[in-house]
């Protein structure tokens, strides 16, 4: 039930939009069934609705009927020598079923749903989870696009480190060899207007904030809790994709996807700490271009917080986060990316100078997690990728290093496509360096992982 009239109003609006699109969806399906041409006759469809969906080879398979209905998926079985919860659980078996529904209808309407059910088995305990990652309807009319429902909105042109990507959360506890699968959608309405071939203006409204999923903090004598907020967020972006340079400028007003720690009191010798997701505004820009065999990208964002003066340790300070990267294509399916990043904290005050030892500990912990322990943090990230045997075998070595505090991570991974339906992956995640760095603090998450995926 909605907790107040504002939340009720927001849900009403979102549900109204979803209802409108759903009604359109049903009407379109009916129209399609009534033999009305799927697209206006003056333009061909970009999506081959009349294409024999699965071809001769696939029609013989058990999942042909599912595929014809727009359903695809994968069955996954994996092993992880550690989870991502920074605890002592190890030797974890993971089995999951992922399903995706992707269907296009007449009149520029489409629907997409993706979700999964997973079972994790520890030596002494079990854990089940099922989630919808995305579920939305999309309507394309002329120069306009509208997408309503649970959706991932991914912004930014640098590689994996994206200062402007602040709208949809990630689940940092997800056990998947593919890092980018940790993105999860939020209920949102996204409206885009296209100008010419290359430019677009996008406005996104997220009625209910959802934060990153991170490991619970477990420390003796401390009790941590999360404060749920229902605030809405909105964002706007002007994007140019085409011509010599791809670029965008963006603005977001909403809540921080990561938390700040705040001591709220004590109870029976236990210090009570809240994980707060405070209000932020982010002004961002990115750019990417190709020169010869190199791709250059830069992305930066200035984030204004509720502590612009930098005097309140309970709230992170405003900061400017910049990532500059170069990708070189060596040919023979070998490429490498190197990125440098810098975080500058405005009005910086060192939490390690707080006189009270408990406050000093908690606010230093908070600053470590937010990369604000130092006024200026520098680091490098990189990735080398290589494909062999007509892209049957793929190797990747990714890593990052913080010059401030010397935290680092290394992640080698190999993927072999046994067939079109079967893929095997194995790799290792290694974290090291000082424990008061974001990467060094994850030492307990060092893990060997392997997974087999069966696609259907």
């Amino acid at each position, binding site marked *: 039930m909605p907790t107040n009239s504002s939340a009720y109003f927001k849900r009403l609006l979102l549900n109204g939009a979803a209802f409108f699109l759903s009604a359109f969806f049903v009407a379109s399906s009916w129209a399609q069934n009534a033999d009305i041409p799927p697209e206006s006759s003056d333009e061909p469809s970009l999506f081959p609705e009349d294409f024999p969906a699965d071809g001769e080879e*696939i029609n013989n398979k058990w999942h042909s009927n599912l595929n014809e209905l727009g359903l*695809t998926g994968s069955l996954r079985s994996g092993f992880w020598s550690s989870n991502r919860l920074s605890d002592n659980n190890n030797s974890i078996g993971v089995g999951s079923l992922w399903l995706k529904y992707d269907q296009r209808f007449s009149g520029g309407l489409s629907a997409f749903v993706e979700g999964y059910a997973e079972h994790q088995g520890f030596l002494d305990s079990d854990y089940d989870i099922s989630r919808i990652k995305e579920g939305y309807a999309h309507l394309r009319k002329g120069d306009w696009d509208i997408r309503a429902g649970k959706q991932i909105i991914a912004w930014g042109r640098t590689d994996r480190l994206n200062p402007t990507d602040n709208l949809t959360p990630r689940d940092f506890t997800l056990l998947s060899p593919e890092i980018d699968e940790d993105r999860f959608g939020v209920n949102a309405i996204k409206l885009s207007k296209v100008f010419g071939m290359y430019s677009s203006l996008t406005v996104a409204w997220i009625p209910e904030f959802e934060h990153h999923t991170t490991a619970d903090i477990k420390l003796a004598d401390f009790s941590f809790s999360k404060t749920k907020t229902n605030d809405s967020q909105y964002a706007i972006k002007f994007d140019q994709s085409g011509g010599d340079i791809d670029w965008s400028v963006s603005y977001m007003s909403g809540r921080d996807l990561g938390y700040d720690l705040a001591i709220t009191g004590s109870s029976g010798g236990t210090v009570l700490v809240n994980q707060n997701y405070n209000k932020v505004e982010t002004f961002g820009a990115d750019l990417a271009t*190709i020169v010869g065999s190199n791709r250059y990208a830069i992305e930066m964002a200035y984030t204004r917080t509720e502590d612009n003066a930098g005097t309140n340790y309970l709230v992170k300070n405003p900061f400017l986060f910049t990532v500059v990267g170069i990708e070189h294509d060596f040919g023979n399916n070998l490429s490498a990316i190197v990125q440098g990043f810098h975080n500058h904290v405005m009005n910086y005050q060192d939490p390690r100078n707080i006189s009270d030892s408990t406050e000093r500990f908690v606010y230093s912990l908070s600053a470590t997690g937010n990369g604000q322990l130092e006024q200026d943090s520098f680091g490098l990230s990189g990735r080398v990728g290589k494909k062999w045997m007509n892209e049957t075998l793929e190797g990747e070595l990714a890593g990052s290093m913080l010059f401030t505090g010397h935290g680092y991570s290394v992640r080698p991974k190999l993927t072999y496509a046994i067939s079109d339906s079967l893929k095997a992956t194995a790799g290792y995640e290694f974290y090291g360096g000082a424990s008061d760095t974001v990467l060094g603090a994850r030492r307990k998450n060092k893990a060997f992982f392997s997974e087999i995926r069966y696609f259907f």
Partner: protein
Amino acid sequence: MKYSMKQISIKTCLTAGLVIIFSSAQLGFAITPEEIMEKNFIVNKVTDSTSQTTMILTNKAGKERVRKTFGTTKLQKGTFDNMRMTRFLEPTDVKGMVSLLIEHSKDEDDIWLYLPSLKKVRRLVSSNKKDSFVGTDFSYGDVIGHKVKEWNHTILKEEDVDGFMCYVIESTPINKTIAKNTGYSKRVSWIQKDTFVARKAMMYDEAGSLYKEMQFLNLELVEPEKNKWYAREFRARNVQTGHSTVIKVDELKVNVGVKDSYFTTRYMESQ
């Protein structure tokens, strides 16, 4: 004796022209190899098209992988530079992946790739033409077409291929960069004399060894008024690894009024 740059250029051009004319005349051809390759380069450049293809990739042991795609092409106004969009339909792990290629005859091409797992369109380096096109035995350069001016061409002889008389043209890169970017030190093409369509080709690696053999089958005249032909089946075999690829064009529609707006990153993201 000292010459100005202009004098050297004029002398070089005259000498090169004489060599071309002499070579063609000596072999008795009324057309230069450059003209043949120029005509071949544009013979399949239709006004616009939509197509559905099946790619069958077979390794040395005979194990097959199958990819299905849906694609559109359109010539940019007043040029023979194509825009190409390719959307992957199968198998499941690449379904939804979309590539967009905008050719520039006088500059590097633009390539973008949409990966559903990233939910983002990403601009790619395009100078490297030798990498495999989505795991097939065709390189990006083979798919786009090798720019005629980047190669030196010679007519070797005339030869019959499946009952069609062909010019046999040897093409070598004009410099090391082209050789490095395409991965070829030499290409030999069999170009049908009356239509200028390629019937087969052989590619040699940078070390000069035979690398790939290609065949272009089931050729159709798809735009008669412009003499545009299209192969409905493409075959390539890497003779060094034994891996082979067959691309079958299951459906092809030409000159159907494809709009420019389809070749945009917006359409790539339409999952």
